[in-house]
């Protein structure tokens, strides 16, 4: 289907209030022709999984700067799986120590992006991941 649009949920789980990065990424994905569902600050893993289900997204992008990624990411993966959305690719952006990245990838996270990551790379990786 040529007119199938890539649908991406951009969400900020956890309690930090820094949503600049999420907005920059949302805009970059929009400019790359994707449909971005932006849900805003302070989302619980349950809220994110529910939104991903209702919106039937292909990709979930999580922005986490609070350091709570090792708690939030597995919970969200678990809920997506419970909802039958195993095909959904999950990406994380924010502040993630290098040593956590392999563990996140093991959990099934498709990509992790830190400060300075280029939005072009993110767009490319998303397109690649959902092929």
């Amino acid at each position, binding site marked *: 289907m040529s007119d199938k649009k890539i649908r991406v949920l951009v969400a900020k789980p956890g309690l930090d209030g820094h949503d600049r990065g999420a907005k920059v990424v949302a805009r970059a994905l*929009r*400019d790359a022709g994707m449909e*971005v*569902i*932006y*849900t805003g600050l302070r989302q*619980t893993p349950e809220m994110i999984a529910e939104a991903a289900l209702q919106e039937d997204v292909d990709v979930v992008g999580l922005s986490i700067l609070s350091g709570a990624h090792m708690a939030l990411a597995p919970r969200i993966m678990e809920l997506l799986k419970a909802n*039958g959305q195993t095909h959904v690719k999950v990406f994380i952006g924010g502040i993630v120590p290098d040593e956590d990245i392999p563990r996140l990838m093991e959990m099934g996270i498709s990509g992790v992006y830190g400060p300075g990551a280029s939005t072009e790379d993110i767009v490319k990786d998303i397109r690649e991941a959902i092929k």
Partner: protein
Amino acid sequence: MSLADSVLNGDRLALARVLTQIENDTPDGRAALDLLFPRTGKAHLIGVTGAPGTGKSSLVNRLALHFRTQNKRVAIVAVDPSSPFTGGAVLGDRVRMKDLSGDNGVFIRSMASRGSLGGLAQATAGMVQVFDAAGYDVIMIETVGAGQSEVDIARLAHTTLVVEAPGLGDDIQAIKAGILEIADILVVNKADRPGVENTEKALKSMLELAHPTQRVYSHHGKYMSVALPIEANTDMWIPPIVKTIATEGNGIPELAEQISKHAEHLRISGDWAARERARLESEMETALQEKLMSQFRERVPQVRYDEIMRQVFERNLSPGEAVKLLTNGRTK
């Protein structure tokens, strides 16, 4: 089990999938619609439209909460514009609807307008039918109120709310054609903002131009009376103006009451059936046009079409004559 059966069994993932299929206008989506169609026709469709920033999403959020207290299941289709340049979109209506999260009786779906001619209204109509068949009692369709496609969507609804806010323009804005004419209920949101009286006054005077409701009015200090046939008014719906502060929930019960009054009015006056009929007829016409067009394309060789098109381009034939030629060629 087919996707349509899963939808009827309350499978939310199947519901979400069917909505995607319909949005992308796939054969699977069409097949699901065919199966679901007999189960539709029960829901109350409410259109919510108005300029960006008037508070539509917040209002929809509060209305949904209110309908939930009446134990009604609520579906929301929130439409935001697609970029005309990249085709991408940022759909941000969920940001204002966080209160509805975690409630299984609510289903929110964001939708990008995708800019296709007429296609948006068609896709929305299909999505609304899926929600209707799935047993949602109230379906709210939220659109940015500008242009033909939004008016088309509003026509889907039984009850259309037009949302205004103070400070957006004077009474000339209010009498511009289009958006206000489709209103069944006018909402002045952000009613705690300065200028709310002016907005209300402008809307009132606009309404009075459309519906002469006042029997006695003052003109240069003289009172003049207007004779109105009394019966004419009793079955006419005059759009009420409701003031709300959506972020705080003020005016929401009053608005919900007007909405149910309007539904009642539609049922008593027979307008409910008339609106349904008009909507289904236009849906059928669209389908028919598509079908005839594709049949036509199959029967007329592309070479012949191109040749006639060339003659039109050279001004040897008018488009009307060209169509005559093309269709006669088909029937011969």
